[in-house]
C-alpha cells in the first residue's frame, strides 16, 4: 500500500507548520488525462490523443464527487456522459459529468473516475510557486483511499490500496 506523507512548511528547509497546513490545505499535483477507453478509440482513428493537463488538486471532503475545471476537460476533447444535480446559493442546478483519468505522480496513483465539470478560475492556493487549482478531490475518490489529517503536526497522510 503506497503511503504518502505531505508535510507543509512555511518555506524551504523549514519544519512542518500547523498554520501553513491550515492555509494551504491538502493539495497535491495531479494530471488529468483522457480516459484509456477514449484514448484507444482516438489511436485507432489515427487522431492524436490530447496531452494531459497538470495542476493542483485540493482534497475536499465536503464534495460528494470530484470536480475538474471544465475548460480543461474541453481541451482534452472530453464530452459529457451524464449530469448531476447540485445545490447552490441560487438554487439547484445541473452540472455535466465526465469520465477522466487522474494521475498523482507524487503518490504514483492512477484512478479513473466520474468528475463534474466546474469553473475553478482564479482558485489558487498559497503555494510557492503559485499554481492554479484544476480539481477538487471529493468523496468518490476518497472512497478508494485512506486520508489522515494531522493538524498539530502540520501534515496529512494519503494511502491507497493500489
Amino acid at each position, binding site marked *: 500500500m503506497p503511503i504518502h506523507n505531505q508535510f507543509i512548511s512555511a518555506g524551504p528547509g523549514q519544519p512542518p507548520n500547523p498554520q501553513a497546513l491550515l492555509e494551504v490545505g491538502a493539495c497535491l499535483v495531479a494530471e488529468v488525462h483522457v480516459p484509456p*477507453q*477514449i484514448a484507444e*478509440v*482516438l489511436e485507432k*482513428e489515427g487522431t492524436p490523443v490530447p496531452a494531459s493537463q497538470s495542476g493542483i488538486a485540493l482534497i*475536499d471532503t*465536503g*464534495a*460528494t*464527487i470530484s*470536480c475538474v475545471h*471544465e*475548460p480543461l476537460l474541453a481541451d482534452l*476533447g*472530453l*464530452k*459529457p*456522459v*451524464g*449530469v*448531476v*444535480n*447540485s*445545490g*447552490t*446559493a441560487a438554487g*439547484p*442546478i*445541473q*452540472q*455535466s459529468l465526465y*469520465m477522466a483519468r487522474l494521475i498523482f505522480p507524487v503518490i504514483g496513483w492512477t484512478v*479513473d473516475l*466520474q468528475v*463534474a*465539470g*466546474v*469553473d*475553478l*478560475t482564479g*482558485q489558487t492556493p498559497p503555494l510557492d510557486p503559485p499554481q492554479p487549482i484544476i480539481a*477538487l478531490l*471529493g468523496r468518490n475518490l476518497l472512497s478508494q483511499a485512506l486520508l489522515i489529517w494531522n493538524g498539530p503536526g502540520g501534515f496529512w497522510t494519503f494511502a491507497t490500496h493500489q
Partner: protein
Amino acid sequence: MALERELAYFEAHKSELLSTYQGQFALIYGDELLGTYTRFEEAFEAGVARLGNESFLVQPIVENAGQVQFPALAVGLLRAHP
C-alpha cells in the same frame, strides 16, 4: 445544457425503465436506448465502444437521483459553469 435530448428521452421512458431495470444504468444516445448495465463504468465503456468519443448519457435508473453536494459551489466559491 448538454444531453438535453437524452434527458428528455429518459424522462419520457422513466416509468417503463424503472419497472424493469431499476437500480441499473441506462445508456442513451439521442432518442435511443442503447442498453442497460449494472455499473456506470460498464455503460461508459459500452458507449465509447459503440459511439467513440461522442456525448452520450449514462443515467442511473432510479426514481430520484438526488443531489450531490459541493459546499464550495453552494457558498459561491466556485461557479457551476464557465
